[in-house]
């Protein structure tokens, strides 16, 4: 699992942070949205965990939930594309690497798309591109603010040019959204890299990055191989991108929701007289409290990605 259970302490109560080694109280860990209270390391979230951190409880309505990938190139490679898809479906319970829909953020109706890195590295193929484009178009149609949370290694290689074309498709849709003066907030989480970065995540009115997130275009190893030199410390982190003027702010996970609400209020005030959001969320579905829900999903889903997380932690620590 993502955090190690300390010997002699019953599993599920105390754990050891894989980043700093500190023993942490799990309840506190989940209540803090999977951020280590000791070192503030931001553990990856699944798409649904992320939705829980951003939307008011029980308000999420999913769109385009039934869309699944085809195999347009009949791609085989080292294993058939269908096998990779099936494995990701089994591992995540998702149908693709993005979940889209709408809901309420501190009582404001927003359209939202959240990527899930566990699904073939959060790569963007036709389904991710189409669902995100539809979410953008839906936000434009309903004049509802748009939030997209990126977590992606890049384009979906197995779909070849169909995949690359999604960059142009999502970017074109955002051009139309901008013409309507509908706010778009992009959240770059660990990792936001490759061709995906060079499309919708970079084209927002406001870009928020999570602390320590890997953000960039070309992979660090490729750059190292080309330049034959060691890269500077902290290269391609959220903080590096802030320093170079590429993101507006680096915000702790727990603060992101409030930050978005404050921004939307200000933009809303300036937009008086423009068309208002015409999207309402129906009855609120009663749900468990966020921390408890996260603990459950942690127990069911995240164990499988433990190795992955350790690698990410090492990478973030520059090891």
């Amino acid at each position, binding site marked *: 699992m993502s955090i190690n259970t300390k010997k002699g302490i019953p599993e599920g109560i105390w754990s050891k942070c894989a980043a700093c080694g500190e023993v942490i109280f799990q309840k506190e860990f989940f209540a803090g949205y999977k951020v280590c209270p000791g070192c503030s390391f931001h553990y990856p979230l699944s798409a649904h965990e992320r939705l829980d951190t951003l939307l008011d409880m029980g308000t999420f309505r999913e769109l385009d939930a039934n869309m699944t990938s085809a195999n347009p190139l009949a791609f085989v490679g080292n294993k058939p594309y269908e096998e990779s898809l099936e494995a990701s479906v089994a591992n995540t319970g998702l149908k693709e690497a993005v979940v889209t829909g709408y809901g309420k953020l501190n009582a404001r109706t927003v359209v939202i798309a959240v990527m899930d890195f566990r699904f073939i590295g959060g790569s963007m193929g036709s389904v991710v591109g189409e669902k995100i484009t539809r979410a953008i178009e839906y936000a434009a149609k309903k004049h509802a603010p748009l939030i997209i949370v990126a977590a992606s290694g890049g384009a979906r290689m197995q779909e070849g040019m169909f995949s690359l*074309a999604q960059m*142009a498709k999502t970017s074109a*849709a955002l051009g139309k959204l901008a013409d309507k003066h509908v706010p778009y907030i992009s959240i770059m989480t660990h990792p936001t890299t490759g061709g995906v970065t060079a499309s919708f995540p970079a084209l927002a009115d406001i870009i928020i990055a999570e602390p320590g997130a890997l953000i960039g275009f070309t992979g660090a190893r490729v750059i190292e191989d080309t330049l034959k030199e060691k890269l500077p410390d902290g290269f391609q982190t959220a903080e590096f991108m802030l320093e170079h*003027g*590429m993101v507006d702010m680096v915000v702790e996970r727990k603060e992101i929701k409030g930050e978005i609400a404050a921004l939307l209020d200000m933009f809303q005030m300036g937009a008086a007289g423009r068309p208002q959001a015409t999207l309402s969320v129906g009855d609120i579905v009663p749900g468990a409290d966020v921390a408890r829900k996260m603990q459950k999903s942690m127990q069911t889903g995240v164990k499988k990605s433990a190795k992955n997380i350790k690698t990410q932690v090492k990478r973030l620590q520059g090891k």
Partner: protein
Amino acid sequence: MLDFEKHIEDMEKRLDELKRLSAGSKEDLSLEIDELERQLAEHKTKVYSQLTPWQRVQIARHPDRPQTRDFIEMIFHDFIELHGDRLYGDDAAIVGGPAFLDGRAVMVIGQHKGHTTRERVTCNFGSPHPEGYRKALRLMKLAEKFNLPVITFIDTQGAYPGVGAEERGQAWAIADNLMRMSQLRVPIVAVNIAEGGSGGALALGVADRLLMLENAWYSVISPEGCASILYKDAAKAPEAAESLKMTADALYKNGIVDEVVPEPVGGAHRAPNATAENLHAALNRALEEISASPVGTMLDLRYAKLRAIGAFEEPQPTPQ
């Protein structure tokens, strides 16, 4: 010389030799010469009609293949090169400026790799930095202001992989081009003349018409990159080139590319002028077609074209 060109080269040498002998002797060698010429033509047709994707990649990378500056020279006249992004610098990996295409003033922009070692180093082998993409966008906005159609030439293995490129927002520069090209209020024709490496190529590739020279490749990842990820072995690039469906004819069949511009037998490097003539005609044709629509319709069609690409299954769509 490429592997599969070796036998052709040998036959051509033998033919030259025969012709030379024939000229200097009383013996009539015309029958032998005719026969060899026939065999050569047959062999060429056979080889070039059965090229594998990897062989096409070799042709696309041939050092003598005409590049952006060569095509500008052969197709346009009175090209005036403009420089700089007005933000940071001037990137030699992208050239651009206004020129005449026959009677029509246009803005031509393209990645240029360079022929000599020195030129290649100056151009970073055709891999642009953010300032290159920003220069391209500046020239496109200039074209829009003065109502000039835009013609772009794609020829890059990818955006430049470097620390400076990341610091100056490579991803941001590319994304900006994608969005703004989708809304540019003048016709855009993009031509992939050789290599189309991923996002670095796409950043000049959002267009009303996407043309591709017959032996060019266009892909989400280079065959070597794909092979090293899939097989941990870049030497398996030929297999990856096959899987990625990256050739002009495959992309035409998949609806990604609008037109394949033929190259004379043997590839553009063997007949640059004839290739340029084909491209010249194709550009005029494309501009005629696009200009037939009013600007609003043109933009709607451009969006519809970008919007339509994708392959997925959806049993029960969400009603909106």
